[in-house]
């Protein structure tokens, strides 16, 4: 590959004027102009010069550490396995999703809601029924896997804004891991099992829960 290497002859290194003349000759003696059209920009078009690039609206000293709007989300429920004492073949129960914008959500079962706080911006009650999954669908690291169907009993799921909540009629494969006291979801039926709920089992019941707060942009129209 040496034939395509650039190696400046020592004599030329010391006689750059000769190189210059040779270059001129090669492109046409005596004064052909190098084609500027072949040259890329001297300075690459970098982000700092591009108005289309995403960047904070303000200087980096003005990042809002506290979101202007905070969404509190609570998902809680109790699922009861049957027949009592096992081996379990079916499961039934409820799941309540509650959300509150810019306030502390009060989940179902909390008796200290003294009507002082604002009402939830969304509250949906799901009925949940399920059966044990076939062997081919089971979560490989779970103790039991259930095929759960979520049906809306009260409320409108479209009012809720939390991430990846069930809709009316949703069927989800979920696996219970007793050692972790957790329920996993076969995420979007992709075969990837991801943590989804705290799941505390007591007797035949499994209490599921998940709570979080999230920054959120709110349209001024709302």
């Amino acid at each position, binding site marked *: 590959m040496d034939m395509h290497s650039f190696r400046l002859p020592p004599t030329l290194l010391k006689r750059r004027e000769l190189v210059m003349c040779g270059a001129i000759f090669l492109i046409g003696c005596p004064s052909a102009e190098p084609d500027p059209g072949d040259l890329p920009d001297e300075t690459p078009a970098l982000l700092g010069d591009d108005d289309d690039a995403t960047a904070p*609206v303000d200087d980096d000293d003005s990042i809002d550490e506290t979101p202007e709007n905070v969404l509190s989300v609570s998902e809680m429920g109790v699922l009861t396995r049957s027949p009592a004492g096992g081996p379990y073949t079916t499961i039934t129960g409820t799941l309540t999703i509650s959300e509150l914008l810019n306030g502390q959500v009060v989940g179902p079962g909390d008796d200290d809601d003294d009507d002082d706080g604002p009402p939830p911006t969304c509250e949906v009650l799901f009925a949940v029924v399920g059966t044990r999954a076939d062997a081919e669908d089971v979560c490989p690291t779970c103790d039991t896997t259930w095929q759960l169907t979520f049906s809306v009993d009260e409320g409108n799921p479209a009012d809720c804004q939390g991430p990846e909540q069930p809709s009316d009629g949703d069927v989800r494969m979920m696996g219970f891991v007793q050692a972790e006291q957790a329920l996993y979801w076969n995420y979007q039926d992709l075969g990837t099992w991801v943590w989804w709920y705290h799941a505390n089992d007591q007797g035949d019941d499994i209490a599921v829960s998940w709570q979080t707060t999230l920054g959120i942009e709110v349209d001024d129209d709302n």
Partner: protein
Amino acid sequence: MTTRALWGGALAAGMLLAGCPSEDPPDPGRPAEDLAPPEELEGVDMDLAVVEAVELLTRTTTRAPWAGHVASLDRIGGGCPTLWEGTPSALDGDAGDDGQGWQDRCSSSNTLFDGAVGWEAVATPEARVVGSRNLAAAASVTDGDSVLFSFVGEASDSLAFDNEGARWTYSSELLGEVDGIAAVDPDLAPVVGFRGGNTTTWVGGDRWSLAIDANVAFYVERVAGVFDSVDVDMFMPGPGADDGGCALEPHGRVSMRVTPGDWIDVAFWEPPPEGTDPDQNSLEACDGCGTVKVRGVGLGEACPDFSSLWTAERLPSGTLDDYVLPLREQLSEDP
């Protein structure tokens, strides 16, 4: 004509210049030294440099900042950073309809989160496209003095399979500044920080090709030890691909900048405009070699061998898991 032969010609031409009209200088406005090739090119194997430049660009795709982003999410804890449903307010861009984000300046253990990141990952197992990802950020995540992940810009990519899974297509668009020890392509050798734009479409499997339109400056890496930036607009047909009229060399141009600022162009064959005679319009022959120029002055040829790109080991791997990024557990607060 080889480079060495060209240098010989240049020397001879220099000798002959005595016959040129002295009253007609080549360019009165330009110092004579500017037409000499940069000394930094001495010893550079341009065949290898062109391949190295293109190979380096294949490592500066969306996969690099995405990997840094995912690694930084493992450091979330104690409510730091504040997570968002949708795109954080500090970002102009839109991470997507199902996007998530973080925005904060806070510390979790020894990890400092500073800025805002929005992202979306969509896996589509039923469709030809395995998945797609968007990432928009103006943020850094540091661990002590070590930058784990830093990205200012936007990036997106997708992975698709076709022809009953025999052919994959990886597409990526990135514009921004990427840095950090975790912001490296998970499959390929790391690149230590870069900035610029890179649009890449890489096809492999039962047919191969690589299309790159990029202008990237590297913080540390130097192509062939001397080039700090690469500006490429090329399509390289590989085995089994429609060669578009020339299978022997890239279609387009590869330019590289030596650190003092000179750009070295390697012009390859280009397809003729539609309706024109293909034998008359390409300035470069389809012979496997491109013309090396500095400031438009030809210096020789580069005949790169891109066969190293057409191997399974070079493929950007991809599974559904790469396009699944729920933060459910990290988001959870004790009930």
